[in-house]
């Protein structure tokens, strides 16, 4: 429960938040790296949370979203998807739209 609260707080506090392995400078997984590249390409400011530094969040986030893999992107409190979905939404222009919407 406390982990859920922590995750909820993180998601609520950050407009665009990526749960990833490593950080944008040193991603520890190809899919996390891809997610960062896509967000960089969108020119948006985003925060990241390194799940490798926090095993409870690493497992907790999977239950929170019913999604078994990392990275996971949240925009304005909503789960957007993993790296495949992020990439597809970027290519279709949906991601930029979602980020710029009020």
């Amino acid at each position, binding site marked *: 429960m406390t982990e859920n609260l922590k995750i909820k707080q993180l998601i609520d506090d950050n407009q665009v938040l990526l749960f990833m392995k490593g950080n944008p400078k040193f991603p520890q997984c190809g*899919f996390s790296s891809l997610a960062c590249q896509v967000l960089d390409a969108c020119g948006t400011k985003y925060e990241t949370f390194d799940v490798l530094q926090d095993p409870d969040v690493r497992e907790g986030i999977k239950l929170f979203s019913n*999604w*078994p*893999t990392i990275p996971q992107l949240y925009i304005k409190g909503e*789960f957007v*998807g993993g790296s*495949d*979905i992020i990439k597809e939404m970027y290519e279709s222009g949906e991601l930029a739209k979602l980020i710029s919407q009020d």
Partner: protein
Amino acid sequence: MLLPSQIEDVIAANLDCDFIEVKGDDGTHFEATIVSPFFEDKSMIEQHQMVYQALGDMMKQEIHALSMKTITSEQWKKFNKL
């Protein structure tokens, strides 16, 4: 070592698919293309969740990463006509 065909079998056993193809030869990273009538009217998140659900514990243990493309039966029919 986990083979792509084993993943195809598990997904197909738990989710009705019109077409399924899984690629990947390192035993941990895989790429899947899945066509199912059950994807109709579902968001991309829901479609991927259905595949993860079909894989169950495999996703937690054997599979490190599964990149996937989910396609509805209707989209697939149009695609094949092109």
